[in-house]
């Protein structure tokens, strides 16, 4: 939709740079907010600020310009091209897992292992590690850039013992499987957390320029393959799971295909009351008691 001429004129009076922020922000208030953040970041050089404003005008995501995104309780996640920017829904999911499920589980003295599939920038694994320093957490991703950035983020936030492995989640090699599930009696990890690509390819025309043009399509587009893959492969190796999703269809795929005698599966709604996740547990496992509280 076009921005009305009056809004452009009004914004010009406040700051001559403000009209350039409008195409992405839409409202003067939001544009002003973003301009303040940019000004604070590029305090010293005006030429860099102008360049940044022009980049924003062309649709580059703010997080790629500022290179960071706050996440979790006290984390700063670095953002680079070719790696998906962490979303607030994911932040909420991490908060939910930490406060509702893992809070009491941390007290048990046995060693807890969590796998983060499609780790991306490492935001989920780091947010879990931040609250539960004793847990063993492993992240898996297919992209080399993601593994590199996730390790950088780990060092930036002064966290240790988070391991990132490069590997294909859809077709895991036997060596990867051995690394992930060793040191366990039943060869099962306590939890699998994942934020797989779930945006439907048919919605591509409606997407915003900043997502369409700048963010990696590998981390965005997918439908059922990751959920089918979970049912067929990964569900045999875990006691509980939490997957982010976007469509009803994806939830049904998990719920219908898992054995209802062994598994309990639930929906998770986000702050805007939209279906955003699916979680579940094995009924006879240790971690199942944590879900009932």
């Amino acid at each position: 939709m076009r921005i009305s001429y009056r809004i452009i004129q009004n914004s010009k009076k406040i700051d001559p740079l403000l009209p350039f922020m409008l195409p992405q922000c839409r409202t003067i208030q939001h544009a002003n907010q973003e301009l303040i953040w940019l000004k604070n970041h590029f305090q010293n050089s005006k030429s860099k600020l102008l360049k940044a404003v022009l980049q924003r005008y062309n649709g580059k995501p703010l997080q790629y310009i500022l290179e960071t995104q706050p996440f979790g309780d006290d984390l700063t996640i670095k953002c680079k091209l070719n790696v998906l920017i962490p979303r607030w829904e994911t932040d909420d999911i991490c908060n939910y897992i930490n406060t509702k499920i893992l809070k009491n589980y941390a007290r048990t003295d046995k060693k807890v292992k969590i796998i983060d599939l499609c780790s991306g920038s490492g935001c989920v694994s780091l947010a879990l590690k931040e609250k539960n320093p004793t847990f063993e957490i492993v992240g898996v991703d297919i992209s080399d850039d993601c593994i590199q950035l996730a390790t950088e983020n780990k060092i930036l936030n002064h966290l240790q013992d988070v391991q990132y492995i490069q590997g294909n989640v859809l077709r895991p090699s036997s060596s990867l499987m051995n690394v992930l599930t060793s040191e366990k009696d039943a060869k099962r990890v306590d939890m699998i957390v994942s934020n797989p690509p779930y945006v439907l390819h048919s919605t591509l025309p409606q997407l915003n320029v900043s997502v369409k043009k700048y963010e990696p399509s590998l981390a965005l587009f997918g439908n059922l393959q990751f959920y089918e893959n979970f049912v067929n492969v990964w569900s045999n190796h875990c006691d509980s799971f939490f997957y982010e999703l976007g469509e009803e269809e994806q939830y049904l795929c998990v719920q219908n295909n898992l054995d209802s005698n062994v598994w309990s599966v639930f929906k998770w709604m986000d702050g805007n009351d939209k279906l955003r996740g699916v979680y579940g547990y094995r009924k006879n496992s240790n971690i199942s008691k944590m879900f009932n509280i």
Partner: protein
Amino acid sequence: MFKEIKFIFKRLIHTNLVLDTKVKANKMPPRLKWDPKLEFEIEEKFLYGGSGAGGQAINRTASKVQLKHIPTGIVVVNQFSRSQKDNRKKAREILMEKIESIRNSDGNGNGMGMSDRALAVYTLKKQRKENRERGAAKKYKKHDSERSEINKKKLEEERMMILKMTGKN
């Protein structure tokens, strides 16, 4: 009768309360602290606005926090920072200030409709402004006296010159 009218006028003109107490910058009342008991009286909401798919399909840069204090009905919205944690903290500070201002109005507390801290900051600013003005007045007084002396000298010189030329005063 006349005296009474004068008295009323005087009262009307001085509507601003005169603050007798002086505030020192190193002896300020403490900042307001968020009372953990109030956590049960508020409703916290995170506004992300807008319809549409959400999730990975939309990249939002701002996170808005809305606090509602149920007993008084005060609503506070804050989105000054990109980090939700900072926003929540700041919103709580603003809400605390508003609650405190209600406690201090209508003859209760300090009666100024402000928390002690905010009142101290306000008076400190006022004091500094007054001091600055006083200083400026002093400075100009000095300048003016110097200037008038110079003018006097000039006049004296002119008078003397005229006296020399004409022999008359």
